[in-house]
């Protein structure tokens, strides 16, 4: 008893709580260490985009000759698209880390500690974002090696990297949310495959939308992956339409913030069900 009354600060309900930024830093550190302890995993996720890039780049070389195709080199057109697709596909797996934490007691221990939910989410996503940057650079390297050339300067590459990170962060947080809601590896992977295919094909990742049916053009207007691909291509072109880059970039940033917020709320749903 005496120990309690001797230290009134303990009972007044004002426990010191770490800030969001510092806590996010600790959590990011955890995921970065885990990630770079098995770099083979990053290489593994690059196999698929490399195949798409090289195979499709060759296979559809001729489509640029079709009337209405805006670009003159297909590999140059395809590369930013494959960058976004890679960011999407890789981030779909983000939630598997949450599921592994739930299958052990790690998630429950974290949620009973003073760590903020926002830090748990952001830390994992930042670590995921670093993977996206590395992959974006490698995909570009492959594309350039295969003959892609861009007139836009450093700003174009920077916009592409930022856009790919936003795609990775938005869909990574969605993946984490699905993980928290379903708590099952199979459900997570199933749902993500179901979603990622239309996101990839109802966009300008593979083809100039001028060649697509009208309904695909309409669908692509609401597709965040397409926003990223459009912003990147514009920024990389010789004479970028900066208002289009800014508009699509803003859509993408707003989308990322909204899904990030909603995903963080999924912790509550998870806690209601444990």
């Amino acid at each position, binding site marked *: 008893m005496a120990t309690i009354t001797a230290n009134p600060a303990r009972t007044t309900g004002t426990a*010191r709580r770490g800030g969001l930024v510092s806590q996010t830093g600790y959590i990011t550190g955890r995921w970065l260490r885990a990630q770079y302890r098995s770099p083979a995993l990053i290489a593994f996720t690059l196999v698929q985009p490399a195949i798409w890039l090289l195979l499709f780049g060759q296979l559809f070389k001729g489509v640029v000759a079709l009337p209405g195709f805006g670009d003159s080199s297909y590999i140059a057109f395809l590369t930013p698209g494959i960058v976004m697709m890679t960011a999407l596909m890789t981030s779909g797996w983000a939630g598997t880390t949450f599921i592994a934490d739930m299958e*052990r*007691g790690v998630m429950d221990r974290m*949620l*009973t500690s003073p760590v903020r939910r926002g830090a748990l989410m952001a830390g994992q996503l930042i670590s995921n974002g670093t993977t996206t940057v590395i992959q974006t650079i490698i995909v570009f390297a492959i594309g350039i090696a295969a003959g892609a050339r861009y007139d836009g300067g450093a700003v174009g590459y920077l916009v592409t990297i930022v856009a790919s990170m936003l795609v990775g962060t938005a869909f990574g947080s969605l993946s984490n949310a699905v993980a928290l809601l379903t708590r099952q590896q199979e459900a997570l992977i199933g749902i993500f495959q179901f979603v990622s295919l239309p996101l990839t094909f109802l966009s300008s990742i593979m083809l100039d939308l001028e060649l697509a049916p009208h309904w695909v053009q309409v669908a692509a207007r609401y597709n965040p992956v397409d926003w990223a691909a459009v912003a990147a291509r514009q920024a990389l072109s010789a004479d970028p339409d900066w208002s289009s880059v800014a508009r699509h970039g803003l859509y993408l940033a707003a989308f990322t913030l909204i899904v990030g917020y909603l995903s963080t709320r999924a912790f509550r749903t998870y*806690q209601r069900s*444990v």
Partner: protein
Amino acid sequence: MPSTSHALEASDLVKTYPAGRKKPPVRALDGLTFAVPEGVVLGLLGPNGAGKSTTVKILTTLSRADSGTATVAGFDVVKQQNDVRQAIGYVPQKSSSDPMATGVENLVLSGRIYGLSRQEAVRRAAELLERFDLTEAGGRQVRTYSGGMQRKLDVALGLVHRPRVLFLDEPTTGLDPEARADLWNEVERLSDNEGLTVLLTTHYLEEADRLADQLAIVDHGQVVAEGTPEALKAELRGDSVQVELVDADVDGNVRRLLGHLPGIGEIVVDGNTLRARVDRGATAVPAVLGALEEKAIPVTAVTVSRPSLDDVYLQYTGRSFRAAENTVGQVEGSAA
């Protein structure tokens, strides 16, 4: 006195889980109530599905009760969540360390989350590794640890920030006897030397008997008996006689036969085993053996014992501990 006079206080907790479509919800807690003074090791004893883990989840702020109130270290688990979290250590049923990180990294991260400086966290990590005999393994990834080592690290993780209340949810389930004994010693040291309040859930009677200063027997989401293990056992008068038959007593003949003997109380049948409460073991055993021999009923073994926690459990729940585990086992499968 404010509620701070108890380190843990649960009052009339109710928690239901949906059981799926067209099924009534599962009532995991049904008015659970108990109180624990500071520095005491409370054992929540009960079969799987009795509501032990649900209780721990509510007290650690992981889950929320449908109704009822609870305080931990004087803080309300709903209104003062963050204070509760700062004051407790939680060792979940499943291993709670990150297998891809080393022991040191796990401990330092935990320390940082609770607000220790980097230097403090590193020092505390080394201290805990030393204490749990893990110093050598500290630099290795946890996935290379044995089950016993992982469990020790789990407890260390719960202690990084020097909590006032420690929750141990079935800490020794799945451990080999040696690792279990190790952990028991450690928990005893914690409560004896550091005055830590510990809430321990277990379905091992032996563990409850050894570690708990105070026991709460939980059945169907309620505390059915509370007290020190000794007091609970002392409340039962007489001894317990256990007869193992070669053939099961299918038609109840043996039960009736023994029931007519003088000085024999209630008899419970569990497979080939009959258990009876008797006034005096020493006089009951010859009478039981004589009666069985007269009717030529073959017997494997007869044992007489002082009341055990199993008898206490039987007394309060109407079924033997082992039988309870088998029947209720599935219920919490969905809720846990």
